[in-house]
């Protein structure tokens, strides 16, 4: 018997099947895919087919062509006919070379089908009435939102409209949708209360690097194969950016890229198997896979939560003391005035080395020996005096840490100090979560407190009674915002105030009467009108007044860049969106154009002008319009640093369609001599992205302990465990697709907790039990895995899950310099829960996911 429906044969696309190129809808890697669509009743043959592969033979291992059960589906187009859909990893993509992850391998299963697991996609605008949501026309939906927004702005000001929208690429989003949302909210509404997907504010997560003159995406996938040492700092690459690890990091550790190194390195320069330094409190699967490849080339440092900038500074001090830096480089490329501040505050040169390192050991929990070894692996010149080549990638473990700004700045500075940027095999930046695709008019807050910030905290604004309209796009804050229980309770209360008011005497059906009554409610009660725009109903949409159906991946033409090469590609449209779902840019344009018409009718030219420029007809027009935001991109190779990281000016959809999986790397520059468009492989070889081209140093803060929101738990025996969160390899974000795919939900059926055997023993917990994880912010029930991923005293939970969120436990603390939350650290209590586990226990695997040993 089988737990899921299985297939033992797959349909074959005929030679003339429709063919499209796209990029995976999920993680930062951006694996290339080829899409085939053909009528359900037609078939190619084993010898003659659109794959151009002989399917009559058993394929060889690692052939680069994979077509599995999860890569096929049957869709229905608007013409009423059924079509086979195959979504296959692209062998010709230099990003994935035919490889794929458990996420991307199920792309086909997420396609909308009227009778399958995705049948509950949103198809029509839905208005909340007395007995739930009812479908309404786009005309009515647009009139309601436009009229409400205009009246709210006129009466209460632009800040009465708040938003929480994605700002990224992939997931069916891209430059087009970001430009649409940006034009509407940043040029049109001009509210200060903007926030980015899961976060409480509108900010970069890496101002600590950008304000130094270094954008975080400055390397190429090739650098992971060329590096002498790779540093993964709070970045679980095997599970989170899987194919980047298996195709680029793993071959380096195995010695498979030595020939590439020899051809790229200087004559006589040593080229050996790569080493890896993993800095993470958990012994995650990235660590154990790397150890399985070669334990002696893996160094695993496990700092105390919230202490990483102290560790980065300690490694930099060790490099400094050993003269593992190039004075000529520092003088030529970095600002020697601010360098004095760095030396005094970050390297603390006035403090004797022994005292400095003893302090660092005490704060971080990492021994001096480990620090010295890590610093040597990162910075000590190789035999013959050749500079070591180190690629340092950080992600949420650093970004969502206690001191976002200082953590990111300290790591950026460690790498520039040791000249590990701008050379083959080096780089310093984000591993990334999702892909990128940001083009918007200027944000109201340009930077951290050192550059005009910090940005407003929208969560605090909304939960504190601020705002009248709250528009949530492609994000589910009830699961994903920090301190989510408090957020949910507060929003629900304000949404119910509105519903109570509307309900009294009946909710009008006529849009004008409806809007009039909502405006009355704004005046007379603490009401919040929430709009949720998404592809499915979400946890948050249960309290929305209006739900808008958005088109998903493959249902519109999108463009995005990946994180590891800034590779811009087209994500072509290969199927229809369900019902009347529309791309996000189009929804925002409909509302924007309506508001413009309302202001024009009022004779208010100034406000009408703010909402103009959204009259796009096609995705390609939006893409072209957005590109104007990048300004003049005529530049020589040596001038690349002054270009915006995602600049694609001059590139068109048609051009990208021809380039297919090859794409072009941003920033794209127009060569001043030839006029040709040229991509940028690697950044900051010639200068940095500051006005004078020099890297700007920054003296980090000293250790001052934990913020009040966390300090209250320290030494409190009710909350003995440090608590951190992360993701599972299997599922993407809130599981919006994955909770519908049986194989995924059976594998990760519940939120889960990892606990060390020593702690589990004291609590009588064993793998497969349920536990309650709790603190003063909230609680979550979780499935228990007892393993050695965490140290005694530390527990780990999946950040959020369709059936519960660990963000109930996180505090409302944000870094005062950036308003970035500390998602990754708080303290909790854990107790056994004696409730009965549902059917999940019969189908979930209870094996340990960080144990690859064969003994």
């Amino acid at each position, binding site marked *: 018997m089988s737990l899921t429906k299985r*297939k033992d*044969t797959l349909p074959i696309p005929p030679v003339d099947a429709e063919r499209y190129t796209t990029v995976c809808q999920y993680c930062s890697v951006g694996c290339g895919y080829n899409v085939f669509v053909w009528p359900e009743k037609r078939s190619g043959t084993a010898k003659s087919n659109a794959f151009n592969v002989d399917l009559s033979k058993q394929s060889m291992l690692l052939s680069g062509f994979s077509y599995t059960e999860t890569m096929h589906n049957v869709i229905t187009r608007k013409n009423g006919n059924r079509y086979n859909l195959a979504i296959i990893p692209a062998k010709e993509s230099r990003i994935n070379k035919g*490889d794929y992850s*458990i996420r991307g391998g199920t792309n086909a299963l997420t396609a909308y089908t009227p009778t399958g697991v995705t049948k509950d996609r949103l198809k029509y605008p839905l208005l909340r009435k007395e007995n739930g949501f009812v479908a309404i026309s786009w005309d009515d939906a647009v009139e309601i939102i436009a009229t409400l927004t205009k009246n709210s702005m006129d009466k209460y000001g632009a800040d009465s409209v708040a938003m929480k929208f994605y700002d990224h690429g992939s997931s069916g989003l891209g430059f087009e949708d970001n430009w649409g949302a940006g034009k509407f909210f940043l040029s049109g509404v001009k509210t200060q209360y903007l926030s980015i997907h899961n976060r409480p504010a509108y900010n970069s997560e890496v101002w600590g690097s950008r304000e130094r003159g270094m954008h975080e995406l400055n390397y190429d996938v090739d650098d992971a194969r060329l590096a002498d040492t790779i540093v993964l700092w709070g970045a679980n690459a095997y599970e989170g950016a899987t194919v980047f690890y298996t195709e680029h990091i793993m071959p380096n550790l195995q010695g498979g890229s030595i020939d590439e190194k020899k051809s790229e390195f200087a004559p006589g320069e040593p080229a050996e198997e790569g080493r890896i330094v993993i800095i993470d409190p958990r012994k995650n699967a990235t660590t154990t896979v790397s150890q399985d490849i070669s334990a002696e080339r893996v160094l695993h440092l496990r700092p105390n939560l919230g202490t990483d900038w102290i560790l980065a500074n300690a490694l930099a001090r060790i490099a400094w003391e050993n003269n593992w830096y190039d004075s000529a480089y520092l003088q030529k490329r970095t600002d020697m005035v601010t360098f004095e501040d760095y030396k005094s505050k970050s390297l603390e040169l006035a403090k004797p080395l022994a005292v400095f390192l003893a302090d660092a050991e005490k704060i971080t929990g990492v021994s001096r020996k480990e620090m010295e070894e890590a610093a040597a692996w990162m910075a000590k010149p190789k035999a013959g005096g050749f500079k070591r080549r180190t690629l340092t990638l950080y992600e949420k473990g650093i970004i969502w840490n206690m001191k976002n700004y200082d953590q990111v700045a300290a790591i950026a500075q460690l790498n520039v100090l040791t000249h590990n940027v701008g050379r083959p095999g080096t780089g310093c930046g984000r591993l990334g979560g999702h892909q990128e695709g940001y083009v918007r008019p200027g944000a109201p807050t340009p930077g951290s407190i050192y550059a005009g910030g910090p940005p407003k905290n929208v969560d605090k604004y909304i939960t504190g009674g601020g705002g009248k309209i709250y528009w949530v796009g492609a994000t589910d804050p009830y699961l994903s915002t920090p301190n989510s229980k408090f957020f949910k309770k507060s929003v629900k209360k304000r949404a119910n105030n509105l519903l109570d008011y509307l309900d009294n005497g009946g909710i009008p059906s006529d849009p004008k009467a409806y809007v009039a009554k909502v405006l009355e409610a704004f005046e007379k009660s603490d009401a919040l009108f929430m709009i949720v725009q998404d592809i499915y109903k979400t946890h948050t949409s249960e309290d929305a007044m209006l739900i808008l159906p958005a088109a998903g991946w493959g249902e519109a033409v999108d463009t995005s860049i990946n994180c590891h090469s800034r590779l811009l590609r087209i994500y072509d449209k290969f199927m229809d969106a369900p019902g009347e779902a529309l791309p996000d840019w189009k929804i925002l344009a409909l509302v924007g154009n309506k508001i413009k018409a309302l202001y024009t009718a009022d004779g208010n030219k100034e406000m009408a002008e703010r909402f103009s420029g959204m009259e796009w007809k096609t995705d390609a027009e939006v893409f072209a319009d957005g590109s104007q935001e990048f300004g003049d991109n005529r530049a020589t190779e040596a001038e690349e640093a002054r270009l915006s990281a995602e600049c694609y000016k001059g590139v068109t959809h048609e051009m990208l369609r021809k380039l297919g999986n090859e794409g072009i790397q941003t920033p794209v520059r127009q060569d001043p001599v030839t006029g040709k468009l040229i991509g940028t492989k690697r950044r900051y070889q010639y200068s940095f992205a500051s006005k004078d081209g020099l890297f700007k140093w920054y003296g980090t803060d000293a250790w001052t302990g934990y913020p009040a929101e966390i300090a209250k738990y320290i030494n409190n025996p009710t909350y003995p465990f440090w608590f951190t969160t992360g993701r599972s390899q299997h599922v993407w974000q809130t599981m919006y697709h994955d909770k519908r795919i*049986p194989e995924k939900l059976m594998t990760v059926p519940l939120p889960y907790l990892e606990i060390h055997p020593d702690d589990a023993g004291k609590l009588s917990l064993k793998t497969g039990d349920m536990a309650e994880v709790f603190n003063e912010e909230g609680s979550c029930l979780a499935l228990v895995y007892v393993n050695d991923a965490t140290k005694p005293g530390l527990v780990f939970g999946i950040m959020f899950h369709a059936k519960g969120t660990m963000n109930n436990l996180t505090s409302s603390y944000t870094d005062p310099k950036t308003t970035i939350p500390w998602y990754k650290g708080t303290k909790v209590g854990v107790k056994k829960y004696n409730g009965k586990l549902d059917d999940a226990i019969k189908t979930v695997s209870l094996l340990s*996911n960080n144990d690859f040993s064969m003994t």
Partner: protein
Amino acid sequence: MSDISRRKFLQTTSASALLLFSGLGRESQAASAQSYSSRKIGNIKNLKVNEPLAFNYPDENSPCVLVNVGHEAVGGIGNGRSVVSFSTRCTHMGCPLTYNNGRLVCKCHYSMFDVSRNGQTYQGLASQWVAQVVLRLDAATGNIYAEGVEGLIYGRIGNLKLS
């Protein structure tokens, strides 16, 4: 309806099979008619816990493993429903899987499959669970017969469609 899992479902009464009726199945894809041969692959009396037996099925180009995991497993036969069998071609990119302690492990990209849970990918890259061999136990003799494969064997357009 000729597809294997449907036929097997109708034959079974085990509790976990009921999951098939709880909304977990995705849109049906009728498999084309396939006719698996019945082949004797071992005897239950000779199987020791966690000592896998290698064999080929449904043809000589398809390596599989038969194992007694020592506890109840989805699709298991024998008194303890503990004997299961799987293809050992990794469903990710076709590398060989090795049996170890209740799991199949691929050393190419580190996918791991739980043999007690229908070949579920509990860690790693393989988006398709590994294909499970349908077994029949002859109670009188203890002989074990392979009689079908549920799920696609990696690298094939159909399990029985090689030329």
